[in-house]
């Protein structure tokens, strides 16, 4: 990577070595800044894997490193989705794990003994440095002004929209996928510009890598054909387009089919059909062009009409046939939810329940992108002005991704690169215009801020220019101010919002000192130390990966939400009465149940707040047994206090959350600090479970599932007996006595 960027840099500044060198230094500084700003979390907390999904990736990486690639490929994980297990090797995107595995082995080869955990933690920052480089290359393709590339790289390096997914410890697919995304686009633009098989093939290779790394590859799969299609419609067909696209498609599709998880999807799934269609269309267009070379216009038109008619008829018939015979799968649910934001909530609550899949709130755009968001339209507008093939690409990308980012929070990530490109284009054109022939004062001012705004661009002689010193100074000064504010904002956001590992919580004591709340790890290590190796833990799926990673115990469901029914089973167990839940727990061999309860600490991300999703998901499968309505009071409120509905009070989740909670408080004073309500004086009774562990701040509570009673009594009766309550003799029952048959 570094080599090739070096190459490009030198080429761009032929004859002006100093500038070239300076540019390299600036690029490296940007990369270093990008890496450094992501290390807040390591400094604030420790070198630890964050959040949820990264824990699975980490575990998979460890497996890969320990057992080698082939057994990783064939990995059947019997410690998740108990008792179904998961064909992990065939249902994950292996790119991330293989990347860190390769890095690990290379470092070992160089006799640098490094822990695999540290590689995983630092992979995302490392790749963000590479992303900055790729961004520079991409933007350089768009603009003749080299300042644009440097600005884009700098923006990409520190913009919070990207940092949110790539801080140290955030070991997720996106960590490398964004680099691959940007770099694939760079190669694609290169291929379209040069019409070379090599660039097309390279784009295909990196596309294949991207496919192996992230499910978001579908974005590329649709964006590139769309680009080609728009080019065709604009009458911009050329042999370069044909070469670039067909090479990319033929090789890229075959490459993507090598990934076991993707398999035949590129042929079968409707998500990929656009690419295939454009491929076919391009063949026709190419042939038409070829024939046209031999013919005068009129005859050609005639031939063209007959060909178009024929092809259209054949294509339509084929599509109908395939769809009817079910060869082509219908669109996937996640895809539908992209178009209709209400779709998921109605049809697939499991998708809607993920916070990442919620529509983006407007402030989030500004929060993640700051002033880039209003430079973005300006950049897109500039693209319209020039309008080459690559600018068309930017425009399409911009339009599509802004829509998607509005639909799903998590797709903000795909928006970020193009915003950086467009903003850099806009800003560089402004700066180029205003700094040309500028007075030394303006330049020194700019130099002073060189780290943020690399304004050492090549200055062409413009035909027109702004020659008033005042306006130059004013505009440059204000832009510099904006850049400074941007840097400050990014640093603030990174250090405050995005550097929390969410496994470890931090809070401030009244005197301002920091308090670390480490309940999660406390509980997971309790499980690791105190339970048998194959004790099955049931929890809501959010914590599945963490339990698997930190406690190393089998779980029933986890964050890989491939089996809705199984998740709904857990939801049903959590939201039903004990008598209903207990057989479910027994059937699934559950030994321990883990719930997250934030009532004592005021931790709002607890299970009771997620409870309605469990109910909804369970209702989706058992509409007769679980009804969301029953959990709301008559006035439609979701309450946990005295007024809570009986269904709510009897649900296992409620009982586990508040079991013994009132004993912390004076009688009748028990307060839930999350929901801010006073609880009933009488706490709930648990019969079929017994409390096994409660963490220091009561965030994690673990309950052990009791065995069947030795004497075949009801658990409620057994508990009553233990407490010394005498059982009432069954006094005369009404109706006939049930006789024993033996």
């Amino acid at each position, binding site marked *: 990577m570094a080599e090739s960027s070096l190459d490009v840099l030198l080429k761009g500044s032929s004859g002006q070595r100093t500038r070239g060198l300076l540019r390299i230094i600036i690029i490296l500084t940007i990369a270093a800044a990008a890496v450094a700003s992501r290390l807040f979390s390591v400094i604030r907390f420790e070198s630890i894997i964050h959040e949820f999904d990264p824990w699975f990736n980490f575990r998979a990486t460890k497996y890969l490193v320990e057992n080698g690639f*082939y057994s990783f*490929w*064939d990995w*059947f994980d*019997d410690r998740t989705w*108990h*008792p*179904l*297990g998961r*064909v992990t*090797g*065939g249902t994950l995107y292996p790119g991330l794990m293989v990347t860190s595995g390769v890095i690990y082995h290379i470092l070992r080869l160089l006799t640098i003994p490094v822990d695999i955990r540290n590689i995983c933690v630092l992979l995302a920052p490392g790749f963000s440095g590479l992303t900055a480089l790729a961004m520079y290359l991409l933007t350089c393709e768009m603009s003749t002004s080299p300042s644009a590339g440097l600005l884009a790289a700098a923006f990409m390096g520190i913009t919070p929209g990207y940092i949110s997914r790539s801080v140290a410890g955030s070991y997720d697919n996106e960590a490398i996928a964004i680099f691959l995304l940007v770099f694939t686009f760079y190669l694609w633009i290169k291929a379209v510009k040069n019409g070379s098989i090599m660039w097309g093939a390279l784009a295909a290779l990196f596309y294949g890598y991207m496919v192996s790394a992230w499910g978001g590859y579908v974005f590329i799969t649709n964006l590139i054909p769309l680009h080609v299609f728009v080019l065709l419609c604009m009458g911009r067909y050329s042999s370069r387009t044909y070469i670039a696209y067909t090479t990319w498609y033929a090789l890229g599709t075959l490459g993507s089919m090598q990934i*076991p998880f993707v398999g035949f999807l590129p042929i079968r799934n409707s998500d990929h059909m656009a690419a295939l269609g454009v491929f076919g269309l391009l063949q026709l267009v190419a042939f038409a062009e070829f024939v046209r070379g031999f013919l005068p216009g009129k005859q050609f038109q005639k031939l063209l009409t007959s060909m178009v008619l024929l092809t259209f008829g054949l294509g339509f018939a084929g599509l109908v046939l395939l769809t009817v015979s079910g060869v082509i799968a219908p669109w996937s649910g996640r895809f539908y939810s992209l178009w209709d934001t209400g779709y998921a909530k109605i049809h697939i609550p499991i998708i809607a329940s993920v916070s990442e899949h919620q529509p983006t709130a407007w402030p989030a755009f500004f929060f993640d992108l700051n002033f880039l968001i209003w430079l973005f339209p300006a950049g897109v507008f500039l693209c319209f002005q020039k309008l080459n093939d690559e600018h068309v690409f930017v425009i399409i990308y911009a339009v599509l991704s802004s829509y998607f980012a509005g639909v799903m929070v998590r797709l903000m990530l795909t928006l970020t690169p193009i915003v950086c490109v467009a903003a850099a284009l806009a800003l560089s054109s402004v700066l180029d215009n205003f700094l040309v022939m500028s007075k030394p004062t303006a330049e020194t001012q700019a130099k002073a801020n060189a780290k943020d705004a690399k304004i050492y661009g090549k200055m062409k002689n413009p035909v027109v220019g702004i020659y008033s010193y005042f306006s130059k100074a004013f505009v440059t000064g204000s832009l510099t101010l904006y850049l400074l504010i941007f840097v400050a904002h990014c640093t603030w956001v990174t250090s405050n919002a995005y550097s929390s590992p969410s496994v470890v919580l931090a809070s401030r004591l009244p005197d301002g000192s920091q308090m670390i709340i480490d309940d999660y790890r406390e509980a997971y290590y309790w499980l690791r130390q105190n339970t048998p190796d*194959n004790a099955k833990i049931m929890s809501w799926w959010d914590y599945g990966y963490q339990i698997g990673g930190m406690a190393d115990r*089998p779980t029933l469901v986890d964050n890989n939400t491939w089996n809705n029914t199984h998740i709904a089973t857990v939801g049903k167990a959590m939201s039903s009465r004990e008598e209903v839940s207990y057989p479910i727990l027994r*059937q*699934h061999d559950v030994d321990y149940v883990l719930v997250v309860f934030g009532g004592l600490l005021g931790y709002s991300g607890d299970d009771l707040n997620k409870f309605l999703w469990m109910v909804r998901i369970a209702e989706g499968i058992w509409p007769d047994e679980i009804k969301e309505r029953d959990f709301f009071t008559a006035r439609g409120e979701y309450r946990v206090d005295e007024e809570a509905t009986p269904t709510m009070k009897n649900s296992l989740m409620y009982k586990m959350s508040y079991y013994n909670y009132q004993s912390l408080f004076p009688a009748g004073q028990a307060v839930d600090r999350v929901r801010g309500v006073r609880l009933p004086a009488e706490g709930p009774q648990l019969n079929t479970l017994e409390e096994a562990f409660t963490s220091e701040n009561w965030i994690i509570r673990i309950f052990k599932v009791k*065995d*069947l*009673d*030795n*004497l*075949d*009594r009801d658990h409620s*009766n057994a508990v009553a*007996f*233990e407490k*010394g309550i*005498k*059982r009432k*003799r*069954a006094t005369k029952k009404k109706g006939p006595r*049930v*006789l*024993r*048959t*033996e």
Partner: protein
Amino acid sequence: MRWCLALLICAFVATVNALSSSGSRLLVVLDETTEKSTYSTLWSDLEARGYDLSFESPKSDKLSLFEHGERAYDHLLILPPKSKGLGPSLTPKHIVDFLNKDGNIVLALSGKSSTSSAVSSLLLEVDIHLANDRSAVVIDHFNYDTISAAEKHDVLLLQRSTPLRPDVKAFFDGEGVLALPRVAPQTLGSDSQLLAPILQAPATAYAYNPKEEIPSPDDIEATGSQLNIVSALQARNSARFTVLGSVEALEDKWFSASVKAPNGKKVPTVNREFARQLTGWTFKETGVVKVGKIEHHLATEGEVAAEDLNPKIYRIKNETVFRIEVSEYSFDKWVPFEVPAEDALQLEFTMLSPFHRLALQPISRTETSTVFGTQFVTPDQHGIFSFRVNYKRPFLTNIEEKHEVTVRHFAHDEYARSWAISGGWVWIAGLWAVIGGFLAFVIVWLYSAPTVNKVKKTQ
């Protein structure tokens, strides 16, 4: 005659000298040591079978079922106390704890005195109900001893019952007549699956308090075979709890008595033999089943190497062999277990629900055990399965074996290769034709390169 029989049994017992399979410390709880002599034959029989007997009064301070959290005794024989209740160290909770810790209990009741509420609530826990009127006894006007209870009809004369279900082994049958004086009636609840009647009252029996008026038919709680004289509970951990309705039947007097039923001959009782059967079963001398080795492995020709035995992981559609070794304890030794003719020992291969349920066939037999086994193909479904043998029959200790194994999917190199499928040959040929064509093309191209250039130049 009687004496002769007694001697015979004595000799038999002495030679057998049985020992329970679960320990020999037996605690007898009885009111006064004077009462002890009433049951001397029983004590000597038990001692002859190898038990260490300790006698304690329920009021004694020393009496404690547990020591340092562990059981202090293996077995417990409780005779009905005269006083109310069993005292502070024999509360129902203690007794339930004793059961939960694998202790076996014989609880004798008596129709002579009313049963204490502590005992009654203990029995209620295990779903055995005593009559509302605590002094009620079982009366039968057709099967009574004409010698001792000509008036009251409260000494029942019964045959030992044969098993109620065909798949249950007979532990309590035999010839001869039992004499059961003044039986406290028990009825069994219909919910508990762990209860089994050992001896039921005859169809003509009913329960009432002889000190009161004869009740109206509506008030009679239970009659006939719904009344149990001896019933047993075998807990999930196979601890045994036997409730004997008539303590008097264990007295020396009734061991050696002769009885005469209406219209019958005068015969000696077989109470002593029955007591042996009852205590032998309860204290785990009989009906104890033990699982020895469990083996499962892939079906292969010849011997299975030790490292291939009991693998943790199988693949779908593997041919799998399962073997289980089962022994049964018979008074003093382990013998091969035999499944009753109408019953089967079954293996389940289950994930959430059984995918296979197969009868295990006896394959070989060692001196002390039978090896059962079967062979099957793992289902076409990956997941965490378990081999389960769940054999729970009345009067036999439970067999509940569960061995988890993982059944994995086909690995990437376990599918048939394309060239192994004849249908794939066409496409392999196609692919190689393309590659061959490509190579030929490249060669021709390179070969033809100069000429083309020449042509171009001339043009």
